[in-house]
Structures are given as C-alpha cells and as structure tokens.
C-alpha cells in the first residue's frame, strides 16, 4: 500500500493516474456507448425494454428495414451533397482568405482573428440569425440578390424543397470558412519565404508561384483540413434544427439529423442506433485519413 502511494506521488504511478482516470472516463462515456450502439442496432428496442441491456436479437432486421424506407436513399444523397458542397465552399473561400491575409500587411493578424467569431458563436444563434436572413418575403439575402439583379423573384430558401438543403449549406459554409482559413494560414506560414524569393529572381509570375510553390507545399495541410472538414460537417446538427428541421418533406434532411429524429421524435431507438452505426463507421474512416495526414506532427 505504502509503495503504491509513494509511486503515485513520486514515480510511474503518477503518470498512470494522470492518464488512466481520463482514459477510463472517455471509455465509459464514449467507448462504451459506441459498443452499445452497435449492439442496439442488432436488437429489438421499444420503450419498455429501454432500460435493459440484453434484448431480443433480430439480426440484420433493423438494417433491412432502414434500407427499405423510401426516404433512406434521398437522405443519404442529401448527406453527400451537404458534405461535398460545404467542404468545397469552406475550403475555397478559406484558402482565398488565408492567401490574402498571408501577405502580412499591418493589422492582418487582428482582422483575421475577427473572422473566428463565427466559430465561437453557439450553433443555434448562427442558425437563428441565418434563418431570418434567408426568410422568403422579408429576408435580407433575397433583397440583396434582387437588388444586384441575380434573382427576379424571391426564393423561399427554407420552405422550397429545391432550396432548403442549400439554405443549410450556405450557412454551414459561412460557419466553417473561418476555421478553415486559420488552419490553412498555419500551413501557409510554414512555407519558407526564400522559395518565393528564388522564384521571383527567376522571373516567375504571381500565378506561377502560387501554382508551383504554394499548392504543392500545402498538400499535407490540405489533406488534414479536408478530412477535418468532413468530420466537422458530419457533426453539424444545430443548423438543421434551427433552420429547416430537415424539412420540408425531408428535402433538407441528412443522416446525422435523421438518426436523432428516429430516436427522439419517433422513439425508434433501434433504427436511430442503426443509422448512427453506419455513419460512425463513415466518420471513423475519415478520421483515419485525418490521423494519417497529421501523424508525423502528432509524433512531434
């Protein structure tokens, strides 16, 4: 007993305690639910058996039932569009801004930092604000678009099934651009300046320098930022809750919102767990790419 105590105060035990307790906590509240989720997706769950661990096993019935639902494929397709367009938009705008701010004019760090307010705002506040901006009759976005002549009549962003998903995508691009920009700025700052100076001496144009130095040197950062973007985009929930609620008629529903709806709107926890299991597998694959692209840095 005494040896254990002295080891905790002055030996390896100290490290083990410091790292052990948090890991046990994480396994208890993240790892265990993960396993439990997979288990539930193979069980029959109703409100009466909610408190039990061992319920009747039904094999792949939940999966088959889920795939057979008519909204399954449209929602999956929405998820793909949402993820692809959100990441694309965030990355392109973020990269442009990062290159711009990387010129290092006086005041650039301060103004660049201001962009991050979008990232610290609660998701519900961002969603509420954009919900109002995107309003059909009185929304300021419709006013601005029609006054510069892009649209001739108001777009009902939230209630038109052709635009509802885009309402969330636009908001999500706004939300994620700043974070993308900051991460890309780190990569840009890491490119040695003498490369550009040497290219200038050789008479390269700005475009050539961008294409032959910036783009190749940013490859590993780009990989990390894109896979992080995939992870964060698949986590996006608040904007759906605050802007469209997945509607109208599931036209803006995506997998992560649907999983919650199945569990907490329709109380079908088995199907909620089933779609969660599928999506968690997708996220895991993305995070392996992320870890791979930052591995050399993780090792220090």
């Amino acid at each position, binding site marked *: 007993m005494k040896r254990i105590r002295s080891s905790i*105060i002055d030996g390896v035990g100290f490290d083990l305690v410091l790292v052990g307790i948090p*890991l046990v906590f*994480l396994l208890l509240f993240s790892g265990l639910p*993960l396993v439990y989720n997979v288990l539930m997706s193979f069980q029959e769950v109703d409100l009466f058996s909610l408190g039990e661990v061992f319920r009747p096993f039904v094999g792949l019935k939940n999966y088959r039932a889920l795939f057979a639902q008519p909204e399954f494929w449209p929602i999956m397709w929405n998820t793909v569009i949402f993820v692809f367009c959100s990441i694309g938009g965030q990355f392109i705008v973020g990269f442009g801004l990062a290159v711009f701010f990387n010129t290092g*004019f006086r005041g650039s760090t301060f103004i660049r930092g201001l962009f991050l307010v979008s990232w610290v705002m609660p998701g519900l*506040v961002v969603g*509420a*604000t954009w919900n*109002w901006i995107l309003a059909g009759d009185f929304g300021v976005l419709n006013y601005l678009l029609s006054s510069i002549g892009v649209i001739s009549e108001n777009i009902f962003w939230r209630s038109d099934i052709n635009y509802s998903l885009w309402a969330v995508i636009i908001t999500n691009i706004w939300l994620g651009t700043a974070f993308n920009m900051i991460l890309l700025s780190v990569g840009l700052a890491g490119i040695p300046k003498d490369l550009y100076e040497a290219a200038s001496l050789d008479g390269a144009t700005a475009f050539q320098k961008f294409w032959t130095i910036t783009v190749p040197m940013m490859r590993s950062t780009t990989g990390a930022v894109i896979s992080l973007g995939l992870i964060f985009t698949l986590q996006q929930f608040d904007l759906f809750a605050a802007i469209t609620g997945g509607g109208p008629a599931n036209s803006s529903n995506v997998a992560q919102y649907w999983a919650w709806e199945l569990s907490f709107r329709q109380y079908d926890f088995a199907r909620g767990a089933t779609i969660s299991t599928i999506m968690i597998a997708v996220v895991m694959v993305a995070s392996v790419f992320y870890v791979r692209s930052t591995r050399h*840095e993780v090792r220090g």
Partner: protein
Amino acid sequence: MMTPHLNRIYLGAAIVFAIIYLFPLYWMYVTALKSGSEIFAYPPTFIPKDPQWGVFSHVWEVRGMGRFIWNSLVIATGTMILVAGLGTGCSYVLARYRNIWIDVALFLVLMLQVLPASLMITPLFVGFSAVGLLDYPRFAVILAVTAKAMPFFVILVRATFMAVPAELEEAALVDGNSRVGAFVSVVLPLARNGVLVSAILIFMQAFGEFVYSKSIIQDVNLQPASVGLNAFMGPNTVEWNNIMAYATIYVTPILAAFVLLQQRIVAGLTSGALK
C-alpha cells in the same frame, strides 16, 4: 517589406472582407433593435429608424431567460471544471513521453474526438436511462459534453506542455521535489496560459451546446439557453426582433470574451489544432 501605400490598399480590402463576413452578426443586432413593424419593411432598413432599447429587458422577462442562462452557466462551468481537471494531467503525460503506448493513447483520443454528438446521443440516452442518470439531467449533460470536449482540450493543451522544457522539470526533481511537487510548482505554472485559454474555449463550446441538452433535459426549468432559443423559433413565428434580441443577449458575453482573448485563442488554436 510592403510600401505604406500598398499596405493601406490591403488593409482597406481586409476591412471590406471582414464587413461582408460579419454582416450576419450586424444583422442580428440591428434586427433586435427594430420595432415589430420595421422588421417587415421593404426594402429593409439597414439602420434602425427608432431603436427599441427596451426589447432586451422585455425578452429577458417574457422568455424567462434568467433561468435559461443560469442553466447554461451551470452546464458550461461543470464541463469546464471536469474537462480541465481530467484533461490537464492527461495532456501532460501525453506530451512528456514518446513511445508506442503514447501513440496508441493519442490515436484513441483523436478517434473519440470525431464521434458526432447527434449520433452518440442515442446510445448515451438509453444507457443513462438504464443507470438512472436521467433523474439528474444537467449532470448527465455535463458528463456527455465532457466526454465530447475532452479530446479537443487534450490536443490543444498537449501542444502547450510540449513547449515547456523538460530540463526545468528535471532540475526541480534534482532539487528534491517529488513528481507531484515538480508538476504543481514548476510545469503547471509555465503552462498556465495555454491551459486557461483552452479551458475558456471549452466553456464557450459547452455554453452553446444543444444536442445533448435538447435530448436529455425534458424539464423546462433545467434547460439551457440554446434549447430555449430553439423553442422560441416556432415554424410560423413573426417575432424576429424578439428572437434576435434573445440571440443577442445569449451571444454577446461570448463575443466580448472572444474579442478580449482573441490573440491568445488564435495562437492556441494554430499551435495545437494541426499538431
């Protein structure tokens, strides 16, 4: 480097970009100040004609915001304390050694960071109901948010501990400190800023948390401000000035804290997030 003239052009462009980007925030503030009829004016007014400063106290009272904000504070404070208490030591150990076990633990932490809350809530809710934690809904939310936020904290703070020279700790050990003594009196003070900034980031995140609170907390008296805002936005609402006033009250303290700590937060993010 740059001529003053060119510098001014770039600065001007940067300000224009910032104004465009931050327009939604401006729109939230001006909408809150407009009257119930002015918000539906066409073309919309960009500066409120008759600012309604009383809207904030009105919304605060009518929506019972004191209770919502208090619950948000309870959840955010509890999460921050739990995350910092558990995560600081963990990140220290993960920064101090380099071997295969540390790599395994880091990989585990990174993997757990990516699990979306809206997917994890199903098993968490069922599990919490099985062990009776749903009777203490705010505590249950704190536990769930802590599990979600801790990996991010560990990654940020680990970068801070990496910057503390190991020689300083070794010197303290040679001087007769125990491991605990060296950690508390030498390493921790040197990493204080990084730990504080990361803890504040966790606080901000937990202050805006929605999925777990919405699903776990059924009692209106225990719900945080995010759930209250969601309930305020019915499908056919016309009270957008009041909703924006609610949002303003909710978000302004966070924005103020962010602007004050901006440089440190950005520095912390850029050193930790990609490493």
